């Protein structure tokens, strides 16, 4: 029997959804395990130190200094490093934390929340790793060979990427957008006259029709295909979890471009898109080209 390919799975600032999605290949996991040996995976097995391996699947972005150390160790020990999921690839939802300083984040969680009883204003600071100034995608810290985007990446997408690598082929991602694979009906009329908040979808809502054309800001035009356009098909607008499409560098810039192309009234847009950063950069703020720098009192400035 040929020697099995050794795979390391490590997680940084995560929710573990990427690992669950990997398990969601279900019975195909048994076939996969014929070809690979998972030598390190906190979710699947009793954890040992990180051994040398052929492939590393790293989920999660970098949020604290322990993440940095672990990531560097994985890079040193593994030949191919793959960013698994949108946190590793772009920073992901925890990246919205970059809108605030570390102090603001900790103050809210440990002092200002309603149920917190903390009269001496104690903050966790002993035996816990300090936060980095910003959440970062892993490629800002180490060289990253491939990316499997998604929050989480669909199980089939992970399966396809791993199968390609095991067959000695380059794993490749779709070059299209979510709109290209979305089956909802588009009338291709350019002008969009109304813009609605998502909770306003009750009267006159047509579940078969393109959400954007009905006035709901859907991130489909600015988002890479590969998820199967599942959210729009469940009648929920895309929020861009696959990150920017192949030829696009900055997801928010692309989305604003797409809305301009659709001739959406800018005034209406400003009025109805109450939180442009949280919508257009929901998954990609830490890798955005127009980054936001936050003054972090007491810390070094970047």
């Amino acid at each position, binding site marked *: 029997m040929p020697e099995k390919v050794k795979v390391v799975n490590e*997680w940084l*600032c*995560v*929710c*573990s*959804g990427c*690992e*669950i*999605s990997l*398990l*969601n290949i*279900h*019975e195909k996991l*048994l076939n996969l395990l014929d070809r690979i040996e998972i030598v390190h995976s906190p979710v*699947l097995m*009793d*954890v*040992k130190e990180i051994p040398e391996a052929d492939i590393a699947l790293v989920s999660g972005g970098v*949020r604290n*200094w322990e993440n940095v150390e672990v990531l560097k160790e994985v890079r040193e020990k593994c030949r191919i490093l793959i960013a698994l999921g949108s946190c590793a690839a772009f920073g*992901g*939802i*925890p990246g919205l*934390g970059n*809108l*605030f300083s570390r*102090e603001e*984040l*900790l103050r*809210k969680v*440990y*002092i200002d929340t*309603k*149920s*917190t*009883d*903390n009269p001496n204003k*104690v903050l*966790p600071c*002993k*035996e*816990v*790793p*300090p*936060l*980095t100034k910003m959440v970062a995608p892993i490629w800002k810290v180490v060289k990253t060979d491939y990316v499997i985007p998604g929050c989480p990446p*669909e*199980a089939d997408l992970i399966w396809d990427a791993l199968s390609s690598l095991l067959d000695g082929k380059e794993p490749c991602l779709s070059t299209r957008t979510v709109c290209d694979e979305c089956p909802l009906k588009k009338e291709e009329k350019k002008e969009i006259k109304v813009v609605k908040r*998502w*909770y306003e979808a*009750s009267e006159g809502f047509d*579940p078969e029709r393109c959400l954007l054309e009905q006035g709901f800001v859907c991130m489909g035009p600015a988002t890479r295909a590969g998820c199967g356009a599942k959210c729009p098909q*469940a*009648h*929920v607008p895309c929020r861009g979890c696959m990150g920017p499409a192949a030829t696009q560098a900055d997801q928010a810039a692309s989305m604003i471009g797409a809305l301009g192309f659709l001739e959406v009234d800018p005034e209406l847009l400003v009025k109805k898109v*109450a*939180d442009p950063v*949280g*919508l257009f950069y929901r998954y990609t703020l830490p890798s955005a080209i127009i980054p936001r720098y936050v003054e972090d009192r*007491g810390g070094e400035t970047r």
Partner: protein
Amino acid sequence: MSKVVEVKPVTRIEGHAKIKIWLDEEGNVKDAHFHVLEVRGFERFLIGRPIEEAPLIVPRICGICYTCHHLASAKAVDAYFGLQPEDLPETANMLRELMLMGNFIHSHSLHFYALAAPDFIVGPDADPRERNLVGVIKKAPEIAKNAIRLRAVGIKITEIVGGKAVHPVTAIPGGVSKGLTEEERQKLLPDVKWAVEFSKETVELCKQLIDKYIDLVKNVGVLRTYHLGMVDDHGVHQLYHGKLRFVDPDGNIAAEFPYHQYLDYIAERVEEYSYLKFPYFKKAGWPNGIYRVNTLSRLNVADKMPTPLAQEYFEELRRTWGKPIHNTLLYNLGRCIELLECAERSLEFLENPKITGSNLRVPVKPRSGEGIGVVEAQRGTLIHHYAADAEGLITDSNIIVATVQNNPAFDRLMCEESKKFIKGGQINEGLLNRLEMLIRAYDPCLSCATHTIAGHYPLVIEVVDDRDRLIAKLSNLE
């Protein structure tokens, strides 16, 4: 403040959780703490987001119990719009609850077969490299295949009802975005029927595990605390909607209240050594009011189960162990009984013609105010609380997750158990395994807890003498 924002690279701290044990001058255990090393700050960065987006953001708190966060959030958002579950269309509530059942089937089966069962099937003394799901696949391929299939049923329910297998999207303000078609119902029915059968086998397997380790179950991790869980008006065990009930360490009802009053009953302390907070039952104060949540706690507060097979096992549990049960290792059995309940409930929903109804949502209008949503997550009571302005932008948020509520009990258990193994500065073998076993029984989801990591715990135990000098370091990391 400067203590926290001082940034310097630290040497790697092994694992996302560790335990530190302090000894006194005689070398006996003085104190022990469970340290959790992650925090992300969801409660801060939700502020400023439109409230209807919250159910699409918060599932990322946890990649295992995402549906619980999605639904607790959706309920909080409904409440902000002035709606309670009884105001929603019946089909919408049924679909939401079915989605939740799917998540329980996935999570409870994952925990039992990936964490608890390997000790049993592969053996507790087996090579750690084999003592995992992969080891189960090698040693008992049939059980492993069925375990994978059972979890797949839960995931399939989530995918069909929730729109996505992980991080579902269909619970929206006032209802659900998508109904269940007859074709989809037919797709799920045979799988769910099978899941009821195999869940029953899982309870039986778990009972064998309990019998095999009966001495451990009776003597390890027995801690008298309060327990918290959700019940309906008739005291029946509920996961999606109901009121909250505390029972005291003797099993008497200590408080019963609609969940929007949680601030009158629960407060959270902060300690310097962990990113987890320390909740307690306010009426009993700190530290008397230490309480536990999770599977066994829910069974401790309930008078009855909602489904027939789960009820049989519930009665057997009460007959054998009484009420309330404080034995930590029985959380595993409680988990399997709930797994069966969720499979039965799913079948009930799918056999009810109303599940394919087309009335899915009621219209909503923003207003300035607050909303509180609570569901039972796999690991215990989950609370989401938001305030928003007249534009529907979030101005404040508070999230209390399940694992955090077990944190104070954890610390206490670590302390009590280590006393049995450390005397006069001598550390006896078995300490590491024992503490690890206790942690696993709670299935703590540190992902959730720090609004970060789940699964299996790379464990490091540091023993420190009365002058804070490290005298021993034990680890399950090789």
